[in-house]
C-alpha cells in the first residue's frame, strides 16, 4: 500500500499515518461504546467499578 505514498514527503507520510490512526481510534472507541449501549450494556464497566 505504499506505492503512491512514496511520491510525498516523509513528514507528510508520518502525519497522514498518525492522523489516520487517531481517527480510527476515535471511530472504534465510539463503535465499541455504541455497540454495547444498544445492548443495554456499559462499555466502560471496568473503569466505573
Amino acid at each position, binding site marked *: 500500500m505504499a506505492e503512491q505514498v512514496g511520491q510525498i514527503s516523509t513528514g507528510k507520510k508520518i502525519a497522514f499515518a498518525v492522523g489516520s*490512526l487517531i481517527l*480510527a481510534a476515535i471511530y*472504534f472507541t465510539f463503535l465499541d461504546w455504541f455497540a454495547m449501549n444498544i445492548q443495554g450494556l456499559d462499555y466502560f464497566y471496568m473503569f466505573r467499578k
Partner: protein
Amino acid sequence: MATLNKQARKNVWAFLALGTFVGLLLLPLFLSLTAGASGEAPAPAASTAPPTAKPADAKPVEKSRDVWYKTEGPVVGAPAPKTTDGPKDYPRYNFESRVILWVALQQHLYYGSFVLAVPIFCMVVEYLGIITKDKALARKYDQLAYDFVKISLTAYSLTALLGGIVIFTFLTLYPTFFTYLSSIFRPVMATYALLFIAESGTLYIYYYGWDKMREGFLKWIHVSMSVVLNVIGTVLMMLANSWIAFMQSPAGVDADGRYLGNIWHVIHTTLWNPINVHRLLGNMAFGGGVVAAYAAYRFLTSKSDEERAHYDWMGYVAMFIGVCFLIPLPFAGYWLMREVYAYRQQMGITLMGGLLAWLFIIQAVMIGALFLTTNYYLWQGMERMRGAERYQKYIKYMVFVLITCFIVWLTPHTMVMTPAELKAMGGQQHPVLGNYGVMSAKNGAINTIITTTVLSFIMYQRGNKMPTVKWAPLGNAFLFGLFTMAYVNIIWLAIYGYYIPANVRVGLSVPQVATTLSCLFIGVLLNSVMLKGAKDLGPTVWGQISVRSQYALIMLATSFTWMMGLMGYIRSSVRLFWHVNEIMRDNSPWAFTHTIGFGANMISFNVLFFWMTILFVFWLGSLGVKKVPVTAPAGQKIPLPAGSH
C-alpha cells in the same frame, strides 16, 4: 432519447412481470398461512364430534397455553404420542434406523443446499452479464450462469428423489413420530408441495428458455425468473427449517404437544430465524465451494490453455461468491448459539461446554482450515498478476497471525484426562493454555482471522494495479490506520473480556464483529474507489496458477461438506432423547448420543457418498458439452466482476 425511453419501458415491464411472478407464485403461501393462523383449518378434535349434535350439547372448546409464546389457544390437535420400543412405533430392518435416516437426510440436505445456492449464483452472474458494458465479458458471464444452472439441473432431480427417500424412510422407520409431525405441519407441507411444483416449473422454463430469452426485454424477464426461482427456493428452505426448529424449540403447542391452531407460532419458533440465516449463508458458501471444486476438477483435467483459463476464472468467481458468504457465517452461528442459550441454557451448555463440546473443537479446526485455505488460494492467485510480487513480503507475517489465531481458536476449554494427568496439570484447565480456551480469546482469534482474510483480499484486489487518484497517499494512510486500529481494538476487547463479569463480557462480541465488518465494508469499498482508473502493472493471466491452488479449492469444498455434516449432527444431537424437545420423547433403542468417533465416521461416509454422486452429476453434465467458449486467447486478460481487481 427515444432509445432511452424504450429501454426504460422495457425495464418497467420487466419489473411488473417480476412482481406478477412473485405475487402469483407466493399466493398459496399467504393463503395457507392466513387460514392456518386464524384457526380455520379442520380441527381433528372438532371433527370427531357427532355431526348430529346440537350446538347446545357441543362441548366447550378446551383451551391451553402455548409452551413458548405463553398465549392461550383452542386445543385442535391430539397430544404427542407416547411411544414404546416395538414394531408399532419403531419398525426396523435389523439395522440402526437412525443411521439410515441420518444418511438419507444428510444426502437430501447436501443436494438441497446445492440446488438452493447455485441458482442464486446464477442470478448474480446473469445479472452481471446484463449490466456489463463489455460485450465479450457479458457473453462470458452469461455462459457461466448457464453452466451453473446446467450443473444444478441434474442435482435438482436427485434432490427430489432423495426427498422421496427421506419421506419413505420416515414413514417406514418412524411412523408414529412422522404422523404426529405431519398432523401439526399439514398446511406447511401442502404449501411446500405447491412451492416445489412452482420451483420445478420455473427452473425448467428458466433453463430451457435460455436461448429464446437471450436478448432485450426477454432477457430481463429471464433474469426476473431467476429472482422468482430463488425466492421460492428460499421460502422452501425456510419451511423445511421450521420443522427442525420446531423439533428443537417447539412452539404453537401446549405442554402435551397439542396443536393450538396457530400455524404461525408453530413455524416461527425462537430458533427459526437464526437457523434460516445460518443455513442460507452456509448453503451459499457450500454451493460456492462445490462449483469451485467442479471448476478445479475441470482445470486439472484440461488439455488446453484456453480451457485452463476458463476454469481458473470460473473457480475464482465461485470461490469469491462462496467466501463472501463464508465471512458473515461465524457471526450468524454466534447468533444461533446465543438464541439457543436464551431458549434453554442447558441446551447451550450441552452444545458448547458439555457432551458435544469436543465436536465444536473439531468445528473450530474446520473453520480455521477454511480461512487458511481461502487465504492460501488468494496468495496463490496473486501469481497470475504481474506487480503482485510487491505484496509477497507481507504474506509471512499474515501466516504468523493466522496460525497463532488458529491455535488459540482451537484450544479446548477442558481436556478429557486421567486422574493422574489431572493432578499433574493442577486442575481441569492448564494454568497457561487454559486462558485461551474461553470465548474472550476465541472471539478475538476468529475476528483477527477474518480481518486478515479481508486484508488478503484487498492485497489481491491491488495485485496488478497502481492507484492513480490524487488522494491515494491519504487513502493508503487511512487503510493503514483502519486495519492497524481494528487489530488493536479486537485484541483489546478480547483482553478486556477477562476483567469484566460474564453478563457484560458476552456483549463484547458485538463491537468485535462490528470492527471486523467495518474493515470489510470500509476497507474494500475505499480500496475499490481508489482503484478506479488505476494503472495496470500487467495483465491477469488466467490459467497461469499453481496446481496447488486448485487443490486448495477442492479442500475448501470438502471442508464445507464435512462441516455441514458435523454441524447438522451437533444441532440434531442436542435434543438428546427427544424427538420434539420436552414434548415427545424418543423411546427407540437409538436414543443415545454416539461417540465422537462414530459420529465422525458417519459424517465422513456422508461426505464421501455425496462427492462420489456429485462427481457422477458433473460427469452427466459434461456429456454432450460443446467446447468451452473462450473469447479471449489464453494468456490475455479477462476482466473480472465489478469490485474485483
